[in-house]
């Protein structure tokens, strides 16, 4: 007996659809982003008017943007119940591929937001008449991508990612407090960091690092982070793979 079997969709179709549906799911975030840009534009406009705009462009601190990239996956995936028999997993697509496609779609929109932000900042710096505005360099895009991948990997690979995020933040704070509390005596931290072998290794590394060209000093850590991000997503995807056994 013959039966007519249906084909599964091709990867290009899956990618295109994920880019489209993720865009639709991020409308709320896009509106919030546009509102923030509008408020910033008004505030900076006033500053430009009074000739105090330089304050806005001399910051070298991109931690906030990095943090946004890290938590952005929570917006991309908030509709999907990843560790349950959810709608997403009923689709006729290889699950790891589906996961990569959606991570890619989120990245596309993160990069669009990033480019819009850079263009916005560039436009404002031109308007302010500043000679050398602080514009995000190309490798900032790599860093943002790396943090986004890391956030995606954590979100997709862990059943309770928020708990892990908060737990990790708690541990870091505790370590910071501990370090401050122990700063007055010869405690384990100091003893460890002041061993001659470690000190000379750190010095050798620092001097070698300083001999590198400036772009390499920025690019290498970003690329390393990118690799870590990719590996995290890959590990997370393996948890959802079709052929993963119990």
């Amino acid at each position: 007996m013959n039966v007519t079997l249906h084909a599964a969709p091709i990867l290009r179709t899956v990618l295109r659809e994920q880019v489209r549906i993720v865009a639709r799911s991020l409308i709320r975030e896009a509106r919030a982003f546009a509102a923030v840009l509008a408020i910033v534009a008004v505030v900076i406009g006033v500053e430009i008017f009074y000739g105090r705009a330089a304050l806005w462009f001399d910051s070298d601190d991109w931690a906030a943007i990095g943090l946004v990239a890290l938590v952005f996956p929570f917006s991309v995936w908030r509709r999907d119940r990843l560790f349950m028999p959810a709608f997403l997993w009923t689709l006729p697509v290889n699950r790891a591929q589906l996961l990569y496609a959606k991570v890619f779609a989120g990245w596309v929109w993160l990069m669009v937001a990033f480019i819009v932000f850079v263009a916005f900042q560039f436009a404002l710096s031109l308007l302010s008449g500043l000679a050398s505005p602080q514009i995000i360099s190309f490798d900032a895009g790599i860093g943002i991508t790396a943090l986004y991948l890391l956030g995606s990997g954590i979100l997709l690979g862990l059943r309770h990612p928020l708990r892990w995020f908060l737990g990790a933040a708690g541990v870091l704070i505790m370590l910071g407090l501990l370090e401050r509390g122990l700063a007055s005596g010869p405690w384990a931290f100091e003893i460890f960091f002041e061993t001659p072998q470690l000190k000379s290794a750190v010095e050798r590394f620092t001097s070698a690092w300083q001999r590198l060209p400036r772009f390499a000093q920025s690019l290498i850590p970003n690329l390393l982070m990118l690799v870590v991000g990719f590996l995290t997503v890959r590990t997370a995807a393996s948890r959802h793979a079709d052929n993963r056994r119990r």
Partner: protein
Amino acid sequence: MSHQEERDITGVPAVATFALSLRYGKQLALNNVDLRIPEGAIYVLAGTNGAGKSSVMKSLLNLERPHAGCAEVFGLDTVARGPEVRAQIGYIPESHAHDYGWLNCGQLLQHVSSFYPAWDHAYAETLNKAFDITLGRRVDTLSKGEARRLQFVLALAHRPPLLLLDEPTDGLDPLARSRTLAILAEHLADAPTTVMMSTHHIGEIESLADHLGVLQTGKLVAQLSRDELRTTVHRFVLDVPEDWNAPTELRSLDLRRSRTGRELQGTFIGKQADVRARLSSSGATVRDVSAVTLEHAALALLNDGESRP
């Protein structure tokens, strides 16, 4: 790549599970289940709540991963060839809620259609009209019945060779139920489809179903075609002496005594001639034998499964 591929599956069941077992923590949800659903069959899976009906369907979609055994759909392993298997399936889950409830019906249909190269847009439109779907309404604002009707469109519009329907009429009012089943019957007449359906309203699908499987606490206790049911489960009307007891080897399920006290009615499982002979040797006189409805048969087999150790 073509949207469809002709495949010779002579002798291959549409659905087959081989000692399929599934656990939720320490609880055994499926215990060595060996389902066989022939191609083109309309298979009703009956069982009490928690018997494992939904778990079987989820295993076929690889939504739940078995801890032992395996399953095949049209000869394709559900784990190794998951995407291909899911491309053959139209699924109506037990739950009415949809993860993408923030989309409107039209957007959800468009989203799902892009994953099925065989999606028939004209047919989807026909189904939308038949099920009275308002495309502009947000999915999470739909009532249970409306959500169920939308799920029917999503499941049928790509004309899948296999339909997995988990309590498909749940949440529908009586009128909607009858309309839905009429549309389903029309769909099955048009497109060659195998159906696996779990329902507590077996009576409604009496005219459609041709196979019955009975699950009891994760075990498949019976699996019969309609013809096998006709020769295996019967309703007997008996004349019996005052202190008559049914023979222990006969599984009497729902014996009911009439007002006069001498007439008994009951359903017995077994070959009619064997049952008749055993009843006669116990002192009962068989007055009438009739076939039972699918619902009655399912109840009998369920009771039988319960009474067995």
